[in-house]
Structure formats: C-alpha cells, structure tokens
C-alpha cells in the first residue's frame, strides 16, 4: 500500500514536469510562428551586420506592407560595391556589380536571413528540434532565445534572439556542435512604425528591371550523376547546366535544401586526375573542392566540413545506357 502511494505520488510529481517541458516547447514554437507573422506584416526599418570569420557586412533593410497587402522590401549592402535587393509583391530585383539589374518572379528574396523565417517556419520541426533557451538582452530590448537544433549531427544549429514585444529578429547565430558561433547576424537598429518607410513609397512608384524568365525545364535537367549521401532532411530541388559567373567554367549543378540550409553540388571534368579535398569557410558557408578520377566535385553550403566532404565523396556517375 505504501509503495503504491509512493508510486502514485511519484507519477503525479512527474507529470507537471513533463507538461511544463512540453509547454516550453510549444512556447518556443509559437515564438517562431510569431516571428514569421511579424516578418510578413510589420513595417520596419532596420540595420544589421553579418559577422563572419574576420569581417563584417553591414546591411540596411526596409520592410513594409502596402494597402494592397503587397510586401515591399529593400535590402542593401552598405560596404563595397552596391548590392541591392528590391521586392515588390512577388517580383524580386537584384542590383549587383556583376550583372545588369534583373528581376525574378518569386515570393521571397534571397539574403542573409533564411527565407524560411518568413515562410512556414514550423515545417522545420521535421528535421530540427525547436527549444526555448531563456531570455537575454539584445539591441537594448529584452529578447527571447530560441534554439533550432538539428536532429542530424551533420548540420549546424541556428540560435535566434527575438524581440519580446514585436517578435522580430534581433540576432541570429549559426552554431556548430561545440557551441562555437560561426556566423552571426546582429541587428544594430530597429524602428517599427505604423506607416510604410518613406523609401518604400518611392520603391512602389519605381519600375523594377525586367523579369527574367527561367526557361521551362532549366532546373530539371537530366544529369548523369547522383549524390548518394546528404544529411537527413535534404531534398533535391534543382539540376541544371550553367557556366560559373566569374570563371565562365561550365558545370553541372544540383542543389538541395532541408528548408533552412541550401547545399549546391558542382561537377565538371578536371585536367588533373586526382586532387585532395581543399576547402575554405566564408562564415558558416563552406566551399569544398576535390578531384577524383578526373572529375572535379565542389560542394558549397552552410554545412560542417565533415558533411561537405561526405557529400562530395558520395557523388556517383551513372552508367549511361550508351556504353556497350
């Protein structure tokens, strides 16, 4: 009898603990949902700095929603040659030194902040654990920390600091298994307003560069090689042949994503027969390159070097039907 009472009391005392853990996770998830909502609905003008190995890239970012419910955005890199991204509704324009200005028909612009943050962020739950990690002070505001931890060790974790009042992003860090921060986005200023920022009003009146049409089937080309291994959750998105912008080297290209991280794999014939893997890091983004049996394989993306190497090693040429 005594044992039973003890047992019951133990069970009873355990339940609230479990429940509060679950509450905390739900709480963290609702924080992310609110972040996504705020990124879609608020008018704000903000600055942030992307801190990589030994340098920093400052950006200015305007965001607003006009009366028609269209999202207007301007994202400008403030150092070096001009790089601006403009977004009006579902047209995104890129103004860069390498290319004449062009527009793309897409929902989200491609910048330092992962697209998924303003999309269906909870879809990450499938491959990441979302857990709360307490409170902190960032940008003079009280912030809630949420950690997005990969279920697969072959990926990085993302830590986000969210503003307690507006739920907007105040800081983001990409962190490896040892807890070292490889790349950070630190917001340095944030203005939230009822009205659309003035420069967005100007954007609304400006005509954007012409939309480039990506030829049908360009991203679904049949390539004679496959990538056999990727960290869990990665799905194939694109396969095409193109020339690398600056070196003009023709490559075959496939890209993969798990929703948060994008990995590109490049394959081309090489002049050497073998070359050991070599890599560099640009913040959390690795570029790894090796030559195996006269085939050059490169992997680029925000994944640990071990994963990148394994992806490169797993590239397998398909035996074509033409060979007798």
């Amino acid at each position, binding site marked *: 009898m005594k044992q039973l009472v003890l047992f019951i009391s133990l069970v009873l005392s355990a339940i609230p603990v479990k429940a509060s853990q679950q509450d905390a996770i739900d709480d963290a998830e609702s924080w992310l949902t609110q972040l996504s909502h705020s990124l879609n609905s608020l008018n704000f003008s903000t600055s942030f700095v992307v801190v990589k190995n030994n*340098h920093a890239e400052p950006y200015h970012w305007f965001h607003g929603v006009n009366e028609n419910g269209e999202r207007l955005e301007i994202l400008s890199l403030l150092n070096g*040659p001009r790089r601006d991204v403009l977004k009006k509704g579902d047209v*995104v324009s890129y103004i860069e030194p390498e290319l004449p200005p062009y527009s793309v028909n897409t929902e989200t612009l491609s910048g330092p902040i992962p697209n998924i943050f303003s999309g269906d962020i909870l879809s990450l739950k499938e491959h990441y654990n979302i857990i709360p990690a307490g409170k902190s002070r960032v940008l003079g505001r009280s912030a809630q920390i949420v950690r997005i931890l990969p279920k697969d060790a072959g990926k990085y974790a993302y830590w986000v600091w969210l503003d307690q009042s507006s739920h907007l992003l105040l800081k983001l860090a990409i962190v490896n298994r040892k807890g070292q921060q490889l790349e950070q986005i*630190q917001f340095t200023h944030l203005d939230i307003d009822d009205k659309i920022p003035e420069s967005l009003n100007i954007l609304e009146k400006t005509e954007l560069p012409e939309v480039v049409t990506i030829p049908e089937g360009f991203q679904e080309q049949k390539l004679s090689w496959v990538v056999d291994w990727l960290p869990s959750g990665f799905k194939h998105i694109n396969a095409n042949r193109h020339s690398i912008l600056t070196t003009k080297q023709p490559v075959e290209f496939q890209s993969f994503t798990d929703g948060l991280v994008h990995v590109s794999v490049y394959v081309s014939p090489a002049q050497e027969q073998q070359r050991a893997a*070599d890599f560099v890091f*640009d913040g959390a983004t690795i570029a790894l390159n090796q030559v195996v049996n006269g085939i050059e394989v490169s992997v*680029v993306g925000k994944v640990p070097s071990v994963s990148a190497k394994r992806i490169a090693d797993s590239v397998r040429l398909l035996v074509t039907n033409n060979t007798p």
Partner: protein
Amino acid sequence: MSESKFETVSSLVDNYQAQDDSVLQDVLKDNDMADTWQRYHLIGDAIRDELPNELDFDLTDAIANAIAEEPTVLAPIAKPTIKEKIKAKVVQFSKPFGQVAIAASAAGMMVIGVQQNVASNDTQTPYQVADTGRAVGGIAEPVSLNFQQNARVSQEPTMAEQHRKFHALLQDHKQQLKISALATSEVTETPIQEAEKSAK
C-alpha cells in the same frame, strides 16, 4: 591664374611675411596650394641640406586612405566571452597562413595592406575568404616580412587559382539561390511549376 596662386605660396615660403591673413587662409583651404607649400619647403630643405634620413612623403595619406577603404571596420562582436575565446583559438588553428600575417608587426601589415589595397581592392573582393586546409609551408620567422612574401610568391599560382575558384563557387552558390524559384517558395507554387503541371 593658378600660376599666380603658386607665386603667392612661393613668396610665403621664401620670406614668411605676414601678408594678408586671407591669403594664408586660402592656402590652408586649397589642397593644391597646401601640397605646393609642402613641396616648396621640401625643396628648400633639400637645398639647405636639412633633409631627414628618411622621407615619408604621403604615407600618412596613403595609410589613412587604406584604412578608409578597409572593409572590416565595423565589428560589433559581443564581449569576448569564453565562447569567443574558444572560437578565436579555432580560427587560429584553421587558418595558419592568416596567423602569420597577424603575428607580423602591425605596421608591416599596414604597409602591405596599402600596396594590396591600391592594387586590387575595388570590385574583386566582396567577401574575404579565410584560408583553411592547406598550410603554406616554409614560413620561418613571422617577423621576417620579406621571407613571408617570398613564400607567398612561390605558392602564388595554385593558391591564387584556388582562391579564385572558391570565390567563384561561393558567388555562384548565392546566384543560384536567387534564380532558384523552387527553393525560395516551396509552399506556394511558382508559375513555372504550374505550367509544368499543366504540361504533364
């Protein structure tokens, strides 16, 4: 007109008689005239054999320019927490070459920086890439700048080539993300997808 301007400077240099105060002010304001003033004094010193052993003509300006052009001025990294320290160690480990450069005296770096910046800064380096992987062998003394440069020259072709390659890859990766309509909007279907569906 400019001829007379320089004559004014000349006379000012020759016998520094307090002419009009406004003339002095003009000289101070005008960069050309200020340069001329400096040059005339230099010539004067040379004639009188009063030159110092070393002349650092416009080094100050060059350094100031280099600093202004330096892309890594902003660094709002938080306090050097323990994590930061660990990170710093890892960075050191992962880029032995950069390490040598850091070990070299700050002044030395500055001078090299000036030359490199002037030569090749502008459009080519939107992002810097940390060296990892291959260590550059044969660097004896971190202080010996000349030696370090020699080592770099001997490694140059492959190193530079690799660097360019990585740079191009990183850039292309970003570029592909931009035109990857599928990648950026998985949830909503793009016109391309719809077109394909209807085609099928």
